[in-house]
């Protein structure tokens, strides 16, 4: 809730003003019956028609003030809720964008997604709803108690004696409610995950005829959410009847005690009757307060989940590290790294690349090829050793500057449901000529021109209307379009036929200013690299040029020989 308050703070003046307006509206609303009884009790018996109309006019006036006050206050409340949610969601999304890969992995994507959507929605409801009923209920409650206190102080004390018990109930229920609703939201993550999974895996699921199975699995998650939601509801629903019971018991006590007091001549029966009628108002006000607490519990649970993300520490901090004099563009100095900090995924890796040189990485599946890229781009920090770019430890380079050096294609990179041009541009400020040049170099121009609308052709979700090779060429265009200092291609030409692949390589050679890091399965893709690293299970088993490795590295030679004459589209 700390966080909610922080976000409400800027809107506090408007909110207070809104509450004041609401206050006026409520007071006039409550004044209406009072005027009415005044007319009946005092005005009518005098027989003055004029006065009847005057007081009737007063009622009319009050009604107008009431409706205006309430509408204006409601709108102000909506505005506050709107602005509140807008900035909260903005900050949450910005925070998510800046989470480290490690943190994203541990929160998981479906959970982040449901926090961004479902949880912000519940907090929004809380902020909006509390403002709306947050005025009337306390006014009625306090007003009611004041009036009864004035009417019969001793009897009111009996009623007030019940209040601590009520507070206890509310405390108990909310303290139970928040964790229970947290449970519900956690289960909602499961629903999000299941839908996401099924939408991406639809072909596999259909091919394996696992539809029924998936339905069952969804059913489990669905049941789980409903069960937890019911659990939370069961606890929350205790509040109302228990409060009712406590208050009504108090009321009964008032009647009995009143009987004694009347008998002793301390009060009059009429007062007790009036007391009872005000009591109904108090009861209704308390019901509203209960509803507020229910809203609060749900909202607080969601707020807590949002806060978890917001509070996630800043990982991958920028550290001070002296820049060393170096003629190397990229240098890996004795790097060791492990994802789970148990078994190393890379061990004692060292290499140096001059500006414009090419590094080729080859090795068995799971040998750590992509890990090198994750480390170079500082998605993860090395456990030991130092990675330097132009002599600076990458941990000392601000993220923005670091990442602006790269053009990269990941293995399962993503395409958005947007135009081809935008997918290449990717939100950067790149002139059309550069865009076209990149597409040409990536051998993508031809197929783009064949699409309806060319560069303005809109891709379907995930680029589903492109073939695998077309997707890869588009992604390579994206990487080249920024004329990056460092070009990284992570096994990103696997779906290209050899002819296209060869033309691509020839085109890449024109990018002399870019230092290239190329992960590949095909020897032909990296054969001309200045340095080739052969990895096996996180260890370097060969390093050097193609010709050297052919002589010194058995595995490399084996790979090369088996691939000769292998491959065709």
């Amino acid at each position: 809730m700390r966080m909610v308050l922080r976000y409400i703070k800027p809107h506090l003046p408007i909110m207070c003003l809104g509450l004041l307006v609401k206050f006026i509206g409520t007071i006039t609303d409550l004044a209406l019956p009072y005027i009415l009884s005044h007319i009946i009790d005092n005005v009518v018996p005098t027989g003055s028609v004029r006065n009847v109309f005057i007081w009737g006019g007063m009622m009319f006036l009050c009604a107008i003030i009431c409706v205006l006050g309430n509408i204006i206050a409601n709108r102000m409340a909506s505005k506050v809720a709107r602005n509140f949610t807008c900035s909260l969601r903005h900050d949450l999304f910005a925070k998510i964008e800046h989470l480290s890969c490690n943190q994203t992995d541990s929160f998981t994507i479906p959970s982040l997604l449901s926090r961004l959507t479902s949880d912000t929605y519940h907090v929004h409801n809380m902020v909006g709803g509390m403002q709306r009923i947050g005025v009337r209920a306390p006014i009625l409650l306090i007003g009611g108690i004041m009036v009864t206190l004035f009417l019969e102080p001793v009897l009111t004390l009996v009623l007030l004696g019940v209040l601590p018990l009520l507070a206890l109930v509310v405390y108990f229920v909310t303290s139970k409610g928040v964790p229970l609703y947290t449970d519900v939201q956690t289960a909602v993550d499961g629903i999000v995950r299941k839908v996401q999974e099924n939408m991406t895996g639809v072909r596999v699921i259909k091919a394996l005829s696992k539809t029924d199975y998936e339905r069952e699995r969804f059913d489990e998650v669905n049941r789980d959410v409903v069960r937890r939601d019911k659990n939370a509801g069961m606890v929350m629903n205790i509040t109302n009847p228990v409060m009712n019971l406590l208050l009504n018991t108090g009321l009964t006590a008032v009647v009995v005690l009143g009987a004694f007091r009347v008998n002793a001549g301390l009060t009059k029966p009429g007062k007790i009757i009036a007391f009872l009628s005000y009591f109904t108002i108090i009861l209704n006000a308390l019901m509203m307060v209960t509803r507020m607490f229910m809203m609060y519990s749900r909202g607080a649970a969601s707020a807590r989940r949002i806060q978890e993300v917001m509070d996630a520490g800043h990982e991958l901090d920028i550290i001070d590290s002296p820049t060393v004099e170096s003629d190397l563009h990229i240098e890996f100095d004795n790097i060791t790294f492990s994802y789970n900090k148990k078994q190393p995924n890379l061990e004692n890796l060292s290499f140096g690349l001059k500006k414009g040189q090419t590094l080729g990485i080859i090795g068995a599946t799971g040998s750590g090829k992509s890990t090198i890229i994750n480390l170079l781009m500082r998605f993860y920090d090395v456990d030991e050793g130092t990675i330097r770019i132009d002599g600076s430890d990458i941990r000392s380079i601000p993220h923005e500057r670091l990442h602006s050096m790269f053009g990269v294609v990941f293995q399962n990179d993503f395409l958005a449901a947007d135009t081809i041009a935008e997918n290449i541009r990717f939100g950067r400020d790149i002139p059309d000529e550069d865009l076209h040049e990149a597409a040409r170099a990536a051998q993508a121009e031809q197929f783009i021109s064949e699409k309806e609308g060319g560069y303005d052709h809109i891709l379907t979700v995930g680029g589903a209307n492109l073939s695998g090779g077309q997707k890869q060429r588009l992604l390579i265009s994206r990487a080249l379009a920024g004329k990056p200092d460092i070009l990284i291609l992570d096994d990103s030409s696997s779906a290209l036929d050899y002819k296209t692949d060869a033309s691509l390589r020839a085109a890449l050679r024109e990018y002399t200013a870019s230092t290239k890091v190329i992960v590949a399965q095909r020897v032909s893709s990296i054969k001309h690299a200045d340095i080739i690293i052969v990895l096996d299970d996180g260890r370097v088993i060969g390093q050097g040029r193609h010709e050297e490795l052919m002589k010194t590295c058995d595995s490399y030679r084996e790979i090369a020989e088996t691939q000769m004459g292998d491959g065709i589209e």
Partner: protein
Amino acid sequence: MNRGNFSAGAIRRAADVENRARLPRRYLLGRLWKYLAHFKWLMLLAFLLTVCSNLFSLVGPTLSGRAIDAIEPGVGAVDFKTVFYYAGLMLIFYIISSVMGYILSVVMLNLSRGVVYKMRRDVFEKLTSLPVDFFDKHQTGEIISIISYDIDTINASLSNDLLQIATSVITVGVSLFMMLQISPVLVLVFAVTIPISLLFTRYMTKKVRPLFRHRSLKLGELNGYAEEMISGLKTTKAYNREAVMIERFDKHNNEAVDAYFKADYYGSMTGPSINFINNISLAMISVFGSLLYLFGGLSLGSISSFVLYSRKFSGPINEFANIIAELQSAFAAAERVFRLIDQEPEPADATDAVELADVAGDVKFNSVSFGYDEGVTILHDLNFTADAGRLIAIVGPTGAGKTTIINLLMRFYDVNSGSVTVDGYDVRQVTRDSLRSAYTMVLQDTWLFHGTIFENIAYGKQGVTREQVEAAARAARIHGFIRRLPEGYDTLLSDNAVNISKGQKQLLTIARAMLIESKMLILDEATSNVDTQTERRIQSAMRNLMKGKTCFVIAHRLSTIRNADQILVMRDGRIIETGTHDSLIADKGFYASLYRSQFDSLPE
């Protein structure tokens, strides 16, 4: 996943239609009612409980009235015995009413959550029965928005509003009756104000409903965008585009909160406005009542009870208006839910569809023409025969239509003309399940789900033992890797399993395929991200996998293609050459030039 081309314009157009056409309210009510009707006993129970607790709320004051009557005589004369008697009764009544109140809330909880459960299940079941192209056209986030936000909205109004409507009707009826008894003339005041209320509510619903539809739509778009962006987080970081993506998110976010605000802006007007009309009637009643007293002989007591009843009368009407306003958001949400549920599923199997059994695996394409969109033909008059047990390789430049053939084999799509047959049966005459389970399919884009490695490998076949899974993993050369994981086969694959490379994922899906018994096999670039050495090591296992099966293979690597019984060389949706590797090389055609090109590129 490859899927051939279709025009994006078509998608936009479809989306537009979706936004425009609105479902009539009566229809929506009917649909909602169907969900509620499943719980008619719960509803009846809830209704009875509400009526009872309403009656009880009337009894309470009567009892306290009796007690006070006993107090009435005043000092020294209070009839304590009676006071205690009624006080005791009051306590008992309050206890009963509280218990009933709790039961009622539990009943309502079960009712509303029951509806939510059913609705979510229906949405998901529809989702699983939709044709694959639906998923190429709809963003995951939007669907998530429907299954969470929209259904939640329906739930919120169902659980609160329904009962209130029921009880309001009762109170309104009784109060009206009582008022008519007291003074029919004064009731005329309502003859003016109630039509105004009704007209106003009508006006408001007309005004507010499109706003609520807009709100649901915008929230869906926001979710769609958010899902896409969060899934592509790494790329955003790599290109340093966080700021731009946040900016775009802001645009969606602003639209969503604005839509929300607008709906609220007008929606929150209804309550106070109706309340205003009620207050006006109250003022009118006071004035006219007073005049009636002065000139018409209405007693003061009658005015006061009339006023009391009129409060009782207008209260529910006030509530009613609020509920109507709130229901608009439920209608808007229901519209999106039902629209999804109403999506055309994959056409049902023909009534006389044959269950494929003991498949031999003879596949035939007879003059097949196909396009994803009308007017755009992807495959032109395709003819080929794949006899049982043969290995068919499909080669050609990207975009030639290779994956489209697979889409037709699996009947993800139906041909436009011509036919595809398996064992002589037209695939349209065969049940989808039996057709699809006759194939094993391994795609380039791996799909693993949130579950253990064991579950993922065992996914394709029921009742697989640990040993079988391990054997498959060993054959796919992934066993060693799995063993080295801290929890081995019980390791949970989370959504973004970073330390599993794409190649390893492909090996896992190959292991999955190895457990499936089928007569036909489809490999679409199944090992594209596996290094060549590992690929060689799994070759014998792959050969085992392919043995005795009709195989359709799309691959770049020659090792498999060279052994193919038949190579289909495709270009622009046509088969331009067929034959074995040797015969095609001898023909010196397109295939031969493709083949030569790799040697051109290799040595240099």
